[in-house]
């Protein structure tokens, strides 16, 4: 239990350090750093309705971040959450397009399943390459992000183009109201239920099944798992598919929920932030939920800052980037701050 506390303290120390660094940078550039920090807190959590707004961004983040956690736990460096998220959204939108006019009770689950399938497929080929030939998954999943982004541009300006749409950003038609799982606030019984259900299932999977134990072990010591006779193919492929599928599900939730359509380049930082959430939470499912809410709050604050406080939204980007820069650091200083001596892990 105390090791959990250490992990949590460690993550908190890094997040605080990043906030301080960003505040210093803002002060140096001539903005009021204190105003920025209080505005971020206000926009994320304190203002009435802010929590709901944070949930709107935090829910899809949680799903994608849980997926990233599954892959990282098993030792697979899947940084392709963005691409898997896009493919999930594309598949969901395609399913919605084909099933127009069906009973919502059937169509909505189909949309969500299609999203999961799309994301899983986009993680399948890096997984097969990794397990079959040892192709580095960092490269394949990273390239997959860009290919998926271009695929999204093509789909939204071609096959699924909104005929009434105009303006700069190509997008699909808005999903009809009966098929939406939430309004633009993104918070409804359905979206909360999905997140809660996924959270519980994943917690059970990670903490109460053989797969959870073996995949966690595979991430730390793959040789040992092989020696124990477990199939690295089965663990690996399951991790990849589940990881991509969850990001794809997030894409489907985003499509059928708050956004209501897919648009070229929508939510561009989603995958990166989801990876951050997983790293800050140190791949624990419960931690991911809490951390996703925090980063969802930052995303909500990014919209709040320019309008209410007159501060540039890029400040949030800098906060996220600073956290990314330092979160994996294993400095003795931070370990001491977190009350831990140098360990081998």
């Amino acid at each position, binding site marked *: 239990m105390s090791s959990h506390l250490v992990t949590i303290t460690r993550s908190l120390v890094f997040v605080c350090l990043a906030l301080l660094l960003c505040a210093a*940078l*803002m002060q140096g*550039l*001539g*903005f009021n750093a204190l105003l920025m920090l209080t505005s971020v807190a206000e926009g994320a959590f304190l203002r009435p309705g802010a929590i709901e707004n944070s949930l709107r961004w935090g829910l899809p983040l949680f799903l994608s971040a849980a997926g990233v956690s599954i892959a990282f736990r098993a030792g697979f*460096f899947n*940084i392709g959450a963005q691409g898997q998220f896009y493919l999930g959204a594309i598949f969901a939108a395609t399913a919605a397009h084909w099933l127009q006019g069906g009973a919502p009770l059937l169509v909505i689950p189909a949309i969500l399943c299609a999203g999961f399938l799309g994301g899983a497929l986009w993680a399948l080929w890096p997984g097969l*390459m990794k397990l079959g*030939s*040892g*192709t*580095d998954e*960092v*490269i*394949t999943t*990273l*390239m*997959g992000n*860009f*290919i998926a982004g*271009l*695929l999204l*541009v*093509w789909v939204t*300006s*071609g096959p699924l183009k909104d005929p009434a749409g105009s303006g700069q950003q190509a997008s699909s038609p808005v999903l009809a109201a009966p098929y939406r799982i939430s309004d633009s606030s993104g918070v409804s019984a359905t979206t909360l239920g999905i997140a809660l259900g996924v959270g519980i299932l994943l917690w059970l999977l990670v903490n109460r099944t053989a797969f959870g134990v073996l995949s966690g072990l595979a991430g730390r010591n793959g040789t040992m798992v092989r020696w124990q006779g477990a199939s690295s193919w089965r663990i690996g492929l399951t991790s990849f598919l589940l990881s991509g599928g969850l990001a794809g599900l997030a894409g489907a939730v985003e499509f059928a929920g708050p956004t209501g359509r897919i648009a070229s380049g929508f939510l561009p930082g989603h995958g*990166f932030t989801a*990876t951050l959430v997983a*790293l800050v939470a140190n791949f624990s499912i419960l931690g991911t939920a809490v951390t996703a809410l925090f980063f969802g709050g930052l995303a909500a604050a990014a919209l709040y800052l*320019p309008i209410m406080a007159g501060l*540039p939204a*890029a*400040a*949030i*980007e*800098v906060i*996220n*980037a*600073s*956290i*990314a*820069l*330092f*979160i*994996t*650091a*294993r*400095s003795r200083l931070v370990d001491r701050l977190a009350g831990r001596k140098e360990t081998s892990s």
Partner: protein
Amino acid sequence: MIDLLIAILRSGTPLVYITLAGVIAQRSGVWHLGLEGIMIIGACATILGIVATGSFALALLIAVLLCVAASVLLWVVIEKLRANPIIAGLGMTGLGLGGTALAVEAIFGSQATVSAPFGVPRIGDSFGRFGVLSIFVVALPVVVALFWVLLRRTRFGLRLAASGEHPFALRSIGGNPSAMRLAALVIGGVLCAIGGAELAGGSLQFFAQGMTAGRGFMAFAAVVFGAAHPVAAPAAALLFAILGTLGIRAQLLFGEKVPHDLLQAVPYLTTVVGVWLSSRLRGGGDGGGYGELRDR
């Protein structure tokens, strides 16, 4: 035809400089995913520097200093704080993109682009239609040749390769892989500054938020596709630039029938196929020999 050649050279040059930065980092054992961020710092500093000082040389100096500072920061995080290079690199990319956007908003308010009265010096009218090319374009073959000599024909280059491929071997002869990586990242910082300066000041003469538009990652793809070879990787980058320029031309000529977006994916697809084939040929490889470095 000459127009096309000029267009290719102009779009390819920034990419090639960034690719060289990626090559030297990769050979020293750092997967450089911060190229995008350091490049945009270079682009931003060049344009803001020209506006502030009125001198291109001074502006370039500022850009170089800032890019080197960012590279040193990345080195400290990776080597001294032992952070994961992939995540730290992505963080540096975010820091560059967000930081430059912040800087522009701090100085100019909510202004999307900043224009400079002039850009990188051009080679001049005595070269006819090629006179619009900047000095960095013309210097490119020389830079690549010097780069090849540095990496393949000097003691430094050998030690650099050792620090990436077999750090233990380098340590055993008293070398210091960490110091080699610092040198590689600093040289890469200078190259990123030049690449950024050429991007913003070569033919455009303005800075826009996020104007690097994924070039850092395309350069990383070229590094991987070109197996971090000092000539093959820049050649791959040039190939990507040719594909991009031809794609835009084809769409201008034939309209919507050409799926331009999908053509743009060709560099990434070829990289994936190339990496997959090379790992197959190696037979279930160990992540290009960088496994030890990546998973530290």
